[in-house]
Every structure is written in structure tokens, then in C-alpha cells.
């Protein structure tokens, strides 16, 4: 037992003292020795270097005195790393202690050995550890379980070679709940650094054992077990319900981490319960009180709870809809709690409670903390946009706040009023006069831009609009880009509305923007306006003063697939950051993306293929496709050399290839599109802007007729216009190719293709059993991919596949799966399972299957978007030898959901303007130039793509 000690802090370790301590450590008197070790430990704790005493301290280790032993162990753990040779001296004592009749000493020895991170020692650790894992005393077993995790951290290979992982798995079935909990904890930690291994093999039996242990182990053990349970996918709703029933009591635990982990399990398994089930409603009711209780805990706990509640209310707003009041802010809450509460208040705001919410928000807007006040003012605006009935009250509240003349309040109010105008046009414009009074006090770019937008948009109702805008123009070059752009647009709007009085003003701003500015965005916009105004003022009016789309209600919702993933990670760091773990957890390259189980999930769980082995097991992608990185690099530098020179030379032609080419109408240069969808986390990065960054690259690939072309799946064949004469109209579908040769599939051969039929993407496969035995139990899973393609249902292979039998399967797909950028972009990694094994292969789908039916852009929008894209972002390439006229080409393309928006004929050239929309709502615009008699088509694709036009 450790005894109280005098203050060792006052002692300062100098060389003389080291000497003194050395003498004391070697003293014959036990008591003196102990005191000396205590002094050493005290110095060590505060960071003083007492490593010189290593041999002397280790000499004290061989003692029956448990207290002294513990102190020496403490010292050893700290300094063994720096003195590995010396540490070896201690090994014998450790090994001896592992045999001690006292379980406390056995456990202590094995525990300490695991903490000594020296390779030489770990070798000696294996035997004692093996014994301790099977010790008769549960205390020793539970300590040994943790020790396996320690050892794995130091030397993972050793742990695997020694079979400790299997022993650890056996411990999940241990009779003592504490041992079970520690085994689960250790396995979870190992699994995290070791994603390939199928460590947590969860089946109904183990789940049952975990649930039993859950009731009896310590609070910390409960957390580990619950987190582990959350990874399990129940077979059906019955099992799901029974697990939920056994987990619900944990909601009443005093430890908030236990509560939140239980919430995670329930939120996840609830997905599988039918909504009309009574139990479903009961469960929803049971979830609210514990979440509310979390908010009465310490502020740090509140913060984490609030971040999680934010996710929960987005997924299931019904749980907390009556609990608005608990999110009301107290003035002495820490700021981080205040801001989170505010966020949730807005999410819960509805017609029923809006009066209360507004009253609160108004109260907050007079608080002291600037950040909080700003957010409160913004919140009022968001309420107005979210709850239409409250808009009027919100606007009047905002006006009251503007009257306070508090600078930052006024500015925030103006920014949100602009959004309110966008949502409810022609309703609240009467307040403009009040806004204009505050023009001079605006000093933040966002507020200035908002005010300028308002003045420009409503120029006809503001008598002195020209004066107001002119006043901004004086310091044009000192403004931020945001304000400059807005000012330019506003003055052009003003000019179009009142052309007579403002000619001078518009010229001034155009020349400022085009001649005196270094900013390309501003310059380009200036030129566009200038040209537009000088060539066709009517068109200019149509474009600039076009009716704007209404803004959406909630702009800050987390994207559904991400939300689903985050719900699976409730209570973790991911849930605090609202980012998937792969986005920030170091060394988590293999972290498997979790998804909520659907009520119609795969009949049986199929381990999702991990990236590594899937890639390894797949055919290497055709080498002729240049790597994505290179393309991107080029794109970002806007260094678009003609595609003909960047690409690798075409492969040597073969007889077969020639034949195929003839079949298709001969000699096409092909082009491959790469769409690069920047992952959300990188948003706002290189490609800039709030729009979904998207880049395009083009390079010649192999001839489309060569065997690999359909697999490489670009748009090449889509533009295969030449051979279209004899073909039926409809979407382009590449022929089937072999994805999984029988050699790799243990006799199963899979060939397939992708098609879009009646608006649904289908994966059409031919399965051939070339083995000697019957194949059954087929299932399929996709790895994450660039467009979130996922099976919409299970793989329907109803009858067993007997030897030499062939079966055709069509698997409908959807695009709501998790997204990850692939290389090449249209690469899809697939895992197919049957009774024999799991097989991995990768295939590539033609981008054209992703073009959706409503990809026809409004003419106006098309025009505006097209004009908005700077010329120099355009990339061009040519398709040779196409013998179709423009109309035939257009109708053929339409079959693949590439729509012709407009056609123009200039100098005998037909220009087709086309739009297509991808499943992830990215628009692609293209211009196709066809010269009669010339078999060469020119395709121009502008580089900037927008998901939605901002203003």
C-alpha cells in the first residue's frame, strides 16, 4: 500500500543529490530504500532526469514489499526505453513474478512488462502472457487481455504469430464480464489499426454473450461493449428489436458516455424496425429524456452531447421536437455551448414554437458576446426562411435590432434580410428605406455586398440608388472582391433599369473593372457585361434581370449519406467534428465506412471488401489511360495542351481491332472524360468557390474498338456518331466484357456491362459456373466509389448455379451510397460472394449511365451559366470521321440523356449546345460544332461547373 509521503518536491536533483540517492537506494534498510525510490519517482514525475540511477533502482525490484515493487515498476516503465540493456536485467524478476501465487503480483508483472516498450523485453513477454491469458484468476486474465493490445502496439506481427488474437477472441466468451469487456476493448483497439483482419466476428452467439456481459461489467466496459455492438448488423427486425430491448436500460446510466453509446446502438438498430411497430414509437419516446439529461451535466459533456444531438435532430427530428426549451441559452454557459444550442434551436424551430424561439433569439441579440450575438441575428433570418408564417415577425424583429444601431448587429441583420428577400420576393421590400439609412455604418465586406445587392436589385424603388452606388464606387479598389463583383452587377442592373441617368456610372464601373483591376474574375465579368450591353441590350436585360430561383430552406443540413455515416459514429470524435473518420483520423486509411442498415438490406451480411485487397485482386486498369493525378495537375495549371500530344501513342492495331473498327464505322479518335469530383472535405480548396469543384480532362485513350475500351468507360463510344446509322435509337450500352475470369473466381466467371434503362442504372451480368460443384448463396457489395453507386437490392440469383450453367442477372443500382474518389474516376470495386469464397474485381462503368433524364437545362439558365464561365477555361477536342449531320447527332445523343438546348448556325457550321446532368447534380455543358461535309466534330467543354448558380 502506498503511504502518505512528505513533500518530495522541494528536493532538487543535482549531481550531489544523485549521489546521495544512490547511497540510499543501496542501503540495507528497507525503509530507507523505499523512501529513496519515492524521492526518485517524485523527481521523475516532474520531468527531472533521474535515469542515471537505473541500475540502483532495478536492484530494489527483488523484494516482497508490494509497495516498493510498484514504485520500481513505475520507474522502469518510464526509463526502460532509454536504457534497454539495463532493462533486460529486470526480465527474470518479471518472469518470476508472473508465476507468483498472489494474483495481484501476477497481474502487476504482466501489466508492467507490457508497458516496457523495448523489443528485447517483449520477446520474453510471450510465454508469461500466454499463461496469464489462461490464468485461473479473472483479474489476471482481464489484465492480460489489455496486455495483448499493448503488445500489438509495439509489435503487431509478433501478436499474430503467437496466436494471441485467437486467444483474445476466445476471451469474449469468458465467464467473467470484466474479462469480456477488456477483451472487447483490446480487440476494438487492435481492429482500428488493423482494418483487414476480421477480428470482431460478430454473430448472434457472441452478441448474446456481449449483451449478458453488458449488464454486469463496469461502466467503462459497458462503453466498449456498446461501441462494439453498434458494428453488428442484425439479421432481421426481430433480432434488432430484441437487442434494442436489452440495451435500453443503459439509457438510465449515470455515466454519460454509456448513455450516448447506447443511443448510438438504438439509433442504428431502429432503422431496421418497421415504423408501424408499437415498439418503434416507444423507443422514440425513450430516447428523449436521456438526451435532455446529458444537457445538465458539466459543460464539456454538454458540448459533446450537443454536437451529437445536432446529428440526431437532423435524422429524427421527432425525438426532441417537444424539448425546445432545454436548449435555451443561459448567460453563463460557455460560448461553445451557447453556439451549439443556438444551432439546435433553429433546427427544432417550427410553426408551433416559433414565437418562443423568436423571443429568445431577440433576447440573445442583446447579449455581450459578439460571436454569439451575430449568430443569434443570423438565426432569426434562418427562422424566417424556415417557417414561412413567422417571416413577418422575424423581419420586424430584425428591424427592431437595426434600430439599436449596434454596428455588428446591423450588419448581420442586413445580410440575413437579403436572404429573406430572396426567399419571399415582393413582400418585405418596404423595409429598404430603413436599411439604406445604415449604409454608412457598414464596414464588413459581407454586409456591404448584401446591401449593394439590395440596392441593385430594387434600384427602381430607391430614388437615389445611383447616388448610393456611386458613393461605393469611390473606393472601388479598396473593396474586397466580393464587394467589387456585387457593385459591378448592381450598377449594370441599375443601368438596365434606368438607362438614361446612369450611363456615366456604368461606364465608370466597367472601365474600373476591366482596365484597372488585376482580378480575372472581376475583369471577365466586366467584359461580359460590356459586350452584352454593347451588342444586345435586350438580351442583356433578359440575362441580368432574369428571375432568380428561390433559395432553399435549409442550406446547412448535412448531406444524407454523410449523416447516415455519422449516426453510426455517434459519441465518437467524428460526431463532434461532423466529418467521417476517414477525413481526419490518422492511420485510418482502412476505416470501413459504416452505413445504417436498411429494413431491406442484404439478406446476409457480407463483409465489405477492403480497398487494399479489392484493388490487388482486380485486373489492372488499362494502361493506356493516363493517371488522374497528371490530368488534374494539368487542369489546375490550366495548361491544356492539345490532347493529341499529351496522350500516349495508340496501341498497335491488331486484326481483331481493325475488324471491330470497321464494324463501328471506322477510324474514330476517342476521348475519355474524367470527371473529378472533389470530396467534400476538400471543398473550398484548389478549385475554389462554393460550387462543387469539378474539373474536366480529356485525353485520347485506346481505340474504342479495342477490347478494353468499353471497360475504360469514357464518353468515347457515346460520341461514336459515325456508326449510328444502322443502330436503334436509345442509350449507348457497351457490350459485356469479362470482369472476373474463371481462374480467379474459383470457377465462377462473371462478365457484364452497365446500362441505363427507364431511368434506372443497371448492372447486367452473366454468371457462368465453370467449376465442378454447385454454387449458391450469391451476394454482392460495392466499395465506395466516385458517384456513390450502390446496389438497390440484393443480387437475385434464386436457383443454385450448377456446373456449366449460365445465368443472366440484372442488378438495379442507385447512387446514394458513400462517395470516394476513385482512380480512374469511373472505377468500381465489386465483391461477389458465394458459398465458395468472396471474390473481388473491379470494373469501369461508362459515365453515360450517370446522365439523368432531367438533364435538360433551361435555356436561360444555360445561357447564363455558359456566359459565366471564363473563355480560357475551355477545353477542346475533336472527333474525326463522323458522318452524321447535326440533327441526327443531336437525336442520337438525346438517347443517352445528352440534351441539345440550342442550335445555331454560323458560317455553315452547326453549333449544338448541350447539357447533361450527372446523378450527383453536377451539370456538364458542352458545345458541339459540326461542319457540313467535314467529318470532324469539335467539342468544347468549359471547365467551371456549378451545382447551382449562386446569385
Amino acid at each position, binding site marked *: *500500500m*502506498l*503511504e*502518505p*509521503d512528505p513533500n*518530495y518536491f522541494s528536493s532538487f536533483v543535482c549531481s550531489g543529490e544523485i549521489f546521495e540517492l544512490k547511497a540510499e537506494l543501496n542501503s540495507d534498510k528497507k*525503509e530507507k530504500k523505499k523512501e529513496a525510490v519515492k524521492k526518485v519517482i*517524485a523527481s521523475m*514525475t516532474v520531468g527531472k532526469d533521474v535515469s542515471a540511477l537505473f541500475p540502483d533502482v532495478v536492484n530494489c525490484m527483488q523484494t516482497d514489499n*508490494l509497495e516498493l515493487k510498484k*514504485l520500481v515498476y513505475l520507474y522502469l516503465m518510464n526509463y526502460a*526505453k532509454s536504457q534497454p540493456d539495463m532493462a533486460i536485467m529486470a526480465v527474470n524478476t518479471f518472469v518470476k513474478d508472473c508465476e507468483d501465487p*498472489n*494474483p495481484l503480483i501476477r497481474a502487476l508483472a504482466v*501489466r508492467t512488462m507490457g*508497458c516496457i*516498450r523495448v523489443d528485447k523485453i517483449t520477446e520474453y513477454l510471450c510465454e508469461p502472457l500466454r499463461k496469464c491469458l489462461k490464468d485461473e484468476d479473472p483479474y489476471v486474465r482481464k489484465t492480460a487481455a*489489455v*496486455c495483448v*493490445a499493448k503488445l500489438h*502496439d509495439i509489435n503487431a506481427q509478433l501478436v499474430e504469430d503467437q496466436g494471441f488474437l485467437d486467444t483474445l477472441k476466445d476471451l469474449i466468451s469468458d465467464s467473467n464480464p*470484466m474479462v469480456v469487456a477488456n477483451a472487447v476493448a483490446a480487440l476494438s*483497439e487492435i481492429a482500428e489499426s488493423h482494418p483487414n483482419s476480421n477480428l470482431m466476428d460478430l454473430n448472434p452467439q457472441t452478441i448474446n454473450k456481449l449483451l449478458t456481459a453488458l449488464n*454486469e461489467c463496469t*461502466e*467503462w466496459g459497458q*462503453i466498449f461493449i456498446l*461501441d462494439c455492438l453498434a458494428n453488428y448488423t442484425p439479421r432481421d427486425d426481430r433480432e434488432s428489436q430484441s437487442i434494442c430491448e436489452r440495451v435500453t*436500460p443503459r439509457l*438510465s*446510466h*449515470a455515466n*454519460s458516455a454509456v448513455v*450516448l453509446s447506447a443511443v448510438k446502438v438504438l439509433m442504428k438498430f431502429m432503422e431496421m424496425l418497421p415504423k408501424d411497430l408499437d415498439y418503434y414509437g416507444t423507443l422514440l419516446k425513450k430516447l428523449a429524456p436521456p438526451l435532455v*439529461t446529458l444537457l*445538465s451535466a*458539466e*459543460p*464539456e*459533456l454538454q*458540448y*459533446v452531447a450537443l454536437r451529437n444531438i445536432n446529428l440526431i435532430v437532423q435524422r429524427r427530428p421527432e425525438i426532441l421536437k417537444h*424539448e425546445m*426549451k432545454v436548449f*435555451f441559452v*443561459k*448567460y453563463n454557459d*460557455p*460560448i461553445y455551448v451557447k453556439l451549439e444550442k443556438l444551432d439546435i434551436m433553429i433546427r427544432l424551430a417550427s410553426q408551433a414554437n416559433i414565437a418562443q424561439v423568436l423571443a429568445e433569439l431577440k*433576447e440573445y441579440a*442583446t*447579449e455581450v458576446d459578439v460571436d454569439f450575438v451575430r449568430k443569434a441575428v443570423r438565426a432569426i433570418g434562418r427562422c424566417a426562411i424556415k417557417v414561412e408564417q413567422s417571416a413577418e415577425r422575424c423581419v420586424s424583429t430584425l428591424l427592431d435590432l437595426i434600430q*439599436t444601431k*449596434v454596428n455588428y448587429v446591423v450588419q448581420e441583420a442586413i445580410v440575413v434580410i437579403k436572404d429573406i428577400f430572396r426567399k419571399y420576393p415582393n413582400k418585405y421590400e418596404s423595409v429598404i428605406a430603413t436599411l439604406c439609412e445604415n449604409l454608412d455604418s457598414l464596414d464588413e465586406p459581407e454586409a456591404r455586398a448584401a446591401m449593394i445587392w439590395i440596392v441593385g436589385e430594387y434600384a427602381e424603388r430607391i430614388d437615389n440608388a445611383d447616388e448610393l452606388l456611386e458613393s461605393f464606387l469611390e473606393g472601388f479598389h479598396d473593396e474586397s472582391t466580393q464587394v467589387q463583383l456585387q457593385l459591378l452587377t448592381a450598377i449594370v442592373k441599375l443601368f438596365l433599369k434606368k438607362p438614361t441617368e446612369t450611363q456615366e456610372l456604368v461606364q465608370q464601373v466597367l472601365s474600373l473593372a476591366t482596365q484597372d483591376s488585376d482580378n480575372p474574375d472581376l475583369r471577365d465579368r466586366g467584359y461580359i457585361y460590356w459586350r452584352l450591353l454593347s451588342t444586345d441590350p435586350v438580351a442583356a436585360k433578359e440575362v441580368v434581370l432574369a428571375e432568380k430561383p428561390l433559395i432553399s430552406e435549409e442550406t446547412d443540413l448535412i448531406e444524407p449519406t454523410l449523416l447516415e455515416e455519422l449516426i453510426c459514429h455517434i459519441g*465518437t*470524435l467524428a460526431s*463532434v467534428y461532423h466529418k467521417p*473518420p476517414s477525413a481526419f483520423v*490518422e492511420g*485510418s486509411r482502412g476505416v470501413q465506412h459504416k452505413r445504417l442498415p436498411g429494413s431491406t438490406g442484404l439478406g446476409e451480411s457480407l463483409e465489405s471488401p477492403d480497398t487494399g485487397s479489392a484493388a490487388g485482386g482486380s485486373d489492372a486498369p488499362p494502361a493506356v489511360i493516363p493517371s488522374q493525378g497528371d490530368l488534374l495537375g494539368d487542369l489546375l495549371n490550366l495548361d491544356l495542351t492539345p490532347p493529341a500530344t499529351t496522350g500516349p501513342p495508340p496501341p498497335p492495331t491488331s486484326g481483331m481491332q481493325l475488324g471491330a473498327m470497321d464494324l463501328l464505322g471506322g477510324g474514330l479518335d476517342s476521348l475519355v472524360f474524367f470527371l473529378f469530383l472533389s470530396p467534400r472535405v476538400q471543398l473550398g480548396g484548389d478549385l475554389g468557390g462554393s460550387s462543387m469543384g469539378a474539373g474536366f480532362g480529356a485525353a485520347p485513350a485506346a481505340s474504342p474498338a479495342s477490347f478494353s475500351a468499353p471497360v475504360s468507360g469514357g464518353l468515347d463510344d457515346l460520341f461514336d456518331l459515325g456508326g449510328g446509322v444502322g443502330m436503334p435509337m436509345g442509350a449507348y450500352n457497351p457490350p459485356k466484357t469479362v470482369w472476373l475470369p474463371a481462374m480467379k473466381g474459383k470457377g465462377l466467371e462473371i462478365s457484364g456491362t452497365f446500362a441505363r434503362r427507364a431511368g434506372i442504372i443497371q448492372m447486367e451480368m452473366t454468371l457462368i459456373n465453370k467449376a465442378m460443384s454447385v454454387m449458391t448463396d450469391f451476394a454482392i457489395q460495392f466499395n465506395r466509389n466516385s458517384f456513390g453507386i450502390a446496389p438497390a437490392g440484393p443480387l437475385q440469383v434464386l436457383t443454385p448455379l450448377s456446373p456449366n450453367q449460365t445465368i443472366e442477372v440484372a442488378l438495379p443500382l442507385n447512387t446514394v451510397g458513400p462517395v470516394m474518389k476513385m482512380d480512374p474516376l469511373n472505377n468500381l470495386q465489386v465483391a461477389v460472394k458465394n458459398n465458395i469464397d468472396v471474390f473481388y474485381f473491379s470494373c469501369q462503368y461508362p459515365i453515360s449511365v450517370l446522365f439523368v433524364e432531367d438533364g435538360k437545362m433551361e435555356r436561360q439558365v444555360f445561357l447564363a451559366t455558359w456566359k459565366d464561365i471564363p473563355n480560357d477555361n475551355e477545353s477542346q477536342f475533336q472527333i474525326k470521321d463522323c458522318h452524321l449531320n447535326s440533327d441526327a447527332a443531336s437525336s442520337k445523343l438525346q438517347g443517352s440523356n445528352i440534351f441539345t438546348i440550342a442550335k445555331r448556325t454560323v458560317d455553315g457550321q452547326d453549333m449544338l449546345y448541350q447539357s447533361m446532368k450527372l446523378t450527383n447534380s453536377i451539370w456538364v455543358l458542352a458545345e458541339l460544332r459540326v461542319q457540313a461535309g467535314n467529318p470532324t466534330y469539335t467539342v468544347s467543354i468549359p471547365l467551371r461547373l456549378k451545382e447551382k448558380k449562386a446569385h
Partner: protein
Amino acid sequence: MIHSLFLINHTGDIFLEKHWKSVISRSVCDYFFEAKEKAEDPENVPPVLYTPHHYLVSIYRGKLFFLSVIQTEVSPLFVIEFLHRVADIFQDYFGECSEAVIKDNVVIVYALLEEMLDNGFPLATESNVLKEMIRPPTILRSVVNTLTGGSNVGDTLPAGQLSNIPWRRAGVKYTNNEAYFDVIEEIDAIVDKSGTTVFAEIQGVIEACVRLTGMPDLTLSFMNPRLLDDVSFHPCVRFKRWESERVLSFIPPDGNFRLMSYHVSSQNLVAIPVYVKQNISFLETGACGRLDITIGPKQTMGKMVEGLKVTIHMPKMVLSVNLTATQGTHTYDLTAKVLVWDVGKLNPQKLPNLRGSLSMQSGAPKPEDNPSINMDLKIQQLAISGLKVSRLDMHGEKYKPFKGVKYLTKAGKFQVRT
């Protein structure tokens, strides 16, 4: 799991560090200091921070930061709960949780941390179990040990660690067997200018002090358990019995512990014991303001309101106050700008009043907001939710224990907006 722990005082010195895995350099704390700098107020430092290689999860307790370093994805609540538990244990061992006391007992602290976590996994966090392994310092014992030069080293396994009831140590013996329960309720409320309740709820706890010999099995039942729909229990409480019979059945830990906490939500009607009539105003011209506060009883269920205290955080420009109170004393802290009025008992016949003028910095603009009033109060022998214990039964042991229940209502975060 938890990798390392740093203890940092409020000036930003790291005075203790403990690593459960490999050693992580102190420099990792720089990210924390940066955030601390930005937050100005130590209470406002975000509890979860993200650095390129680690996560920092911290709590702020007793002017100390407990900062833990994490390398893999773990539940931050688990870490925060654990850190609070460490602080609780220090409090329990040393009577307070401060830099001085931790430095004085550094070896015990170090040994405690070693016992509480193994490789980042919690090992023993129950104070009962820890005290069996590491004895808390007492003056008497240190005197005895210095005189005799000996120490009683128990090298037996702490029984609690292995049994199914880890919270109770074996072989407990008392000559006086007693079990006391305190039902303590705190009212959290926000009352607006006009006196209407914006929000009110009750946070209740039952604190127990049980000193009983052997392995007693207790059953505590309530007159009106229906009130309790949102509860959290100490692990010792058998949840099934609660679900089916609405009684608390448990084998108690030895000594002081929190048996349960509960929450009576804002949807139930919460009685507000006092009302506050107030008028705080700042004049547009001239550097002065007026303050007038009267407190009266509202729903006290016939009990005496005591320990009444009013705290007001004044705007920065209020330089001094010139107030007179009909009862109690008031002080104004010039640097922190906090006005405290210690009222004492509330006499319904003669309502306490505080009034007078506030003088402000000349030339300063009128404050944008009025300060909120924070209330403190106590009502003995009343649980404001109406909760009542009906009886306590003991099985498993033969003796007759002394039993007692006390009730107390306090103000929690009770705010009146002005």
C-alpha cells in the same frame, strides 16, 4: 484510448504529466495554449481540439485544466467522464483539487493515475477500490509511520475488483450502522423581465451515506415514483426492479455515493419559490443608472426560504454602486464588476429590498444590454418536485440500522432577465 494526461494550471504551466503508452512531447500542448489564448476566458476553451497528429480533450476543474492526448478514434465523452472522475478522486483523497495539493502528494497522484488506467483503458475508478490499494494521506497515519518506521502493506487483491459488485469492498464492519439519504433538488430556471417563467426544470439527486456492516441489500421506495421518468442510477441499482416495481433495490457502496440523479423536465409544472421585482435602468444622459430589486415568496409550500443571495454581473462601464439594502449585506467587486447581495432569510412580512444608484464611467455609451440576475437560495426539508421517500428496507443482514432522509431544495442556474 487515452494516451497521456497533462495537468496545467490557469497560467499555462504544465506541472504534471503522465503517459500510459509511449511518451508524447509536451509541445503538443501548444495547440491547447493557442486555443486558450483565443478563448480569453478559461471556461470558454473548447473541450475537444484537433491537432495534426492528436486530439486534445480537456476539462476545466478548480482552476486546473486536465488535458488528455488521444491518438485514435475514441468516444470523447468517455474521456471527459474519465477526466472528471480523476478530478473527483483527487478531491476525495486530498480534500481539494488544486495545484498545491497535487504537487504535495505527487507520488500518490502518480500511483493513482497508474491504477486508474492501464494502456489507456480504465482499470479501477471506484474510490472504494482505490482506497484499498492506495491509502489516502492523513496526518495521523503519517505521524504514526514516521514514528514506527513501518507501513501496513496490504498485498491482498482488492476484493471489489473481481466480484460482481465492484463498488463495495468486502469485510466492512461498523459499530454504528447507519444509512442516510439526502434528496437534493436544484431548480434551473430562466425568468423574463415580466416575471413569467421562460423555462424551468429540476435536477434532482439522491446522495447517500451508507455505513453498514457486511453485505446489506437495501430497498428504497417512494410515495410518488411516477414523478421520476428521467433517471440515471448508480451502477449498483437493479434496473429491472425499478422497471417493474418502481423501487430502488441495491447493494450499496461503502461510504458516500450518489445513488441516483433525476430530471423533472420543463413540461411538468415546476414551482418557482420566489419572485423578483426589479428595475435596472441606465440613463441616456449623465453617467448614472438606477437599481431597485425586491424579492418576495411565490410558491414555498409553507417553508422558509434561506441562504438567499443575488449576484449581478454589471456591464463594464459601471464604476461604483451606491445602494442601500433593507436586509443583509451587499458588496461590489470593482474589478470583476460583480454585485453580490447576501440577503439571508426571506421574511414574507418584510420583503427585502435593495435600491440606489449606479455610477458609470463618464462619456461611455449606454450599455447595450441589461445584466441578468443570478439567484441563490435554499429551502430545507422540501423537495420542490414533491418527491417523497416512503421507506427503506434492509435484507441480508440481521442488525437494525439507523435510517434517515433529508430533503433540500436549492437554486441551480436560476436566472432573472432584466
